[in-house]
């Protein structure tokens, strides 16, 4: 159980497992925790938002690295061995462990991404729709989006404690 600095806001529903290493300030919304794993640890960067029901699993032995300012929306499931910065995994999207994300990628709501072979998404790749079609996003509007995300994180850090008893990760 690593010491948790007050910087962290851990929602009552959030459980932080022993083998998850926390760096920087992290906001974890209510819901399922990063799962305890058969294998490697998970390193989550700063400014990430993990909403309720999001599941982050490391299926590999090596460390799973998640960069900064990523948003994992409600009920999504991420197994990517590496996730860059500023990515968005939308509501109930599912990303298989064969997929690595660079930066500014968007996995659309409800999309299932299961590449049959290991694959690295280019920056700004957007995956959307029932058949998981792909586009490259022009990146226009990203500054505003990141601004929104950072302000959102601030808000959560400030508000969550008021309504939710903070528990210091009662991992298994």
């Amino acid at each position: 159980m690593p010491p948790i600095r007050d910087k962290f806001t851990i929602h009552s529903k959030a459980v932080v497992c022993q083998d998850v290493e926390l760096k920087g300030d992290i906001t974890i919304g209510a819901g399922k925790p990063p799962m305890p794993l058969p294998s490697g640890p998970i390193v989550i960067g700063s400014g990430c938002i993990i909403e309720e029901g999001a599941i982050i699993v490391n299926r590999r032995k090596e460390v799973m690295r998640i960069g900064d300012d990523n948003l994992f929306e409600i009920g999504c499931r991420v197994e990517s061995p590496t996730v860059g910065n500023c990515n968005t995994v939308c509501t109930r999207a599912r990303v298989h462990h064969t997929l690595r994300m660079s930066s500014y990628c968007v996995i659309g709501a409800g999309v299932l991404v299961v590449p049959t072979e290991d694959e690295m998404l280019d920056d700004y790749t957007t995956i959307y729709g029932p058949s998981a079609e792909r586009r490259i996003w022009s990146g226009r509007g990203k500054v505003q989006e990141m601004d929104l995300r950072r302000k959102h994180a601030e808000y959560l850090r400030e508000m969550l404690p008021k309504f939710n008893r903070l528990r210091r990760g009662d991992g298994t």
Partner: protein
Amino acid sequence: MSAVPNTPRRANAQESFTPAATPQTSRVASSHIVQSSPHYQTTRRHSLYGTEDRIILDPGSCIWKVGFSGEGKPRDVFYAGGDSGESLWTLNRASKPAEREEEDRILEAKLQACLRSVFHNSLLTDPKSRKVILVEHPLLPLHIKEIMARILFNNLQVPSISFASSHLLALLAAGRVTGLVLDCGHLESTVLPIFSFRPLYPHLRTTPLAGARLSNHIKALLLMFGTYIPPATSLSATMNIPAASRSIRVPQDVLTEKVIDEIKTRICFVGDPIDTDGSGAAQHAMSPGPSEADLPPSDPALSESEFSRVSADVSIDSSNFAPSSGYSVVSHSQLPGMDHAPGESRVQALATMYGRHSTATDIHLRVDPPPAQQTGTGRGTLIVPGWIRERAAEVLFEGGDVDESSVAEVILDTLLKVPVDLRKTLASTILVVGGTPMLPGFIPRLQAELTRAVSRTSNSSSSSAAPSRAGRPRPRPAAYDKYAALRPLLPYFAILNNPAPPPPGNATAAANAGKAPAFTPSMMAWVGGSLAGALKTGGVEVQREKWDEAEAQPDSDDDVPMAHDSSPARSARSSPAKSILPDWTRTPLPTGAPPAPRPPAAAAYIPSAQEQMVMG
């Protein structure tokens, strides 16, 4: 406004010679909008539809185009058979009366749904106040025409329907009144010569080589040469097998109508004629008869059958398309004297030959796994070989069969039939319309095939446009040079809407080739209809009053079914309709025979023979 059209139009003409650029020229506040304002006005004026504006329906067996007259493009385009993309009707009807009746009832129900949604969902207009122009394919089965008329008049109560020949309308959209129009649609390719507004129906020629056949062929090819990689078996599988080891032959039910349609409309195109040493037409023309030497060329002939045999073996359920088309490829190539023993190898040979003549890239498609194997782990991958993308359409140019001539042959056959004096004119004003010519490269290829077929000399000419057919043993007089008569026309051949016309053979060709406005082949008939509507004209018009009267006519053969349950009654009602709907097939023969006698009441509304000849 339209009084002073030219000056500003010129101004615009300049810049929209690169039309794509027009809308693209970024910021909205750019200069030429000011210029375009006159047209802005005019177009507005014409888009104001009073009851004057007609509704233009172009109902295909597969895709419908609907909109208002006076507009440059339809308001809505949709699959009539639902998103599955299957066609509403096929070339053949059930033989048993009971089955046919049931077939018709279902067709009527579907047509009714389509027509109602056209007015209520696509056009949002009140049918009772809108005259309708029905873009009519000359070979549209009469019973379907009747059903449509019945729904429009009885169920939707439109004031009148005008029936206009799709070929003629298409020609109008090209700015011509004389020409040889090839409509290559879904079920059929039909050629109709038109001389100064006047369709020469007796010379109409048709072939089943069209969209549906192409889809069918693509399917057969994919089943043999496509590759399918199923999705991962489970999401939790930590280690994954390389795709290569999991790739398999394409399962039958991965290739749904929808998938095939996407392949056809999105990634297929038509390559240049296969014309290399050894398999080129020229050489073969020289080499007499069949010989071991020209194995490759002799392949396709057989392989056609091989493919379709394959497709037969895996039993493509023929409900998707006309059962005939499912197998006719077989039938037409299983001519006497053909043994299928070396089939497989030949098919392979063909594949390799096509492969040799294609530089197209392979394409990966994401497709739904067969219902049986849906593991909820996403979609499978279908790999379409580049040569299939480029060479699938060869099937349309593979002629040489009496009742399934290639799209090139069907044009030439028509030319052979028309009066000699018209040939030059028609040969130099060929117009190609319909959905299938939307395939990139189709029209240029057609032009090439025409030239090739005509320029071929005796022994190989017995076969078709396709070089590959050359030297194939056939049970017909080898020396018979079918198109010899047309050879003098060679320099005249010109396709009005050929996007890339070859160097013209002479002035006439030069004046015509590629001179049509840049409307898309698939839309020409509709645009023509819109034009006719805007010009307050159209085909033979049938008023609702007349229809009702004709329907009210107590018809002798009506009494019996009238009492019956609704469906036979409904079909029975059509009998009076028959007599008032224009139908060129019931018009006098070229010999000038008088019209067949008809019940007087109806007779009054039969457009006179010549009108029908014109507009039917």
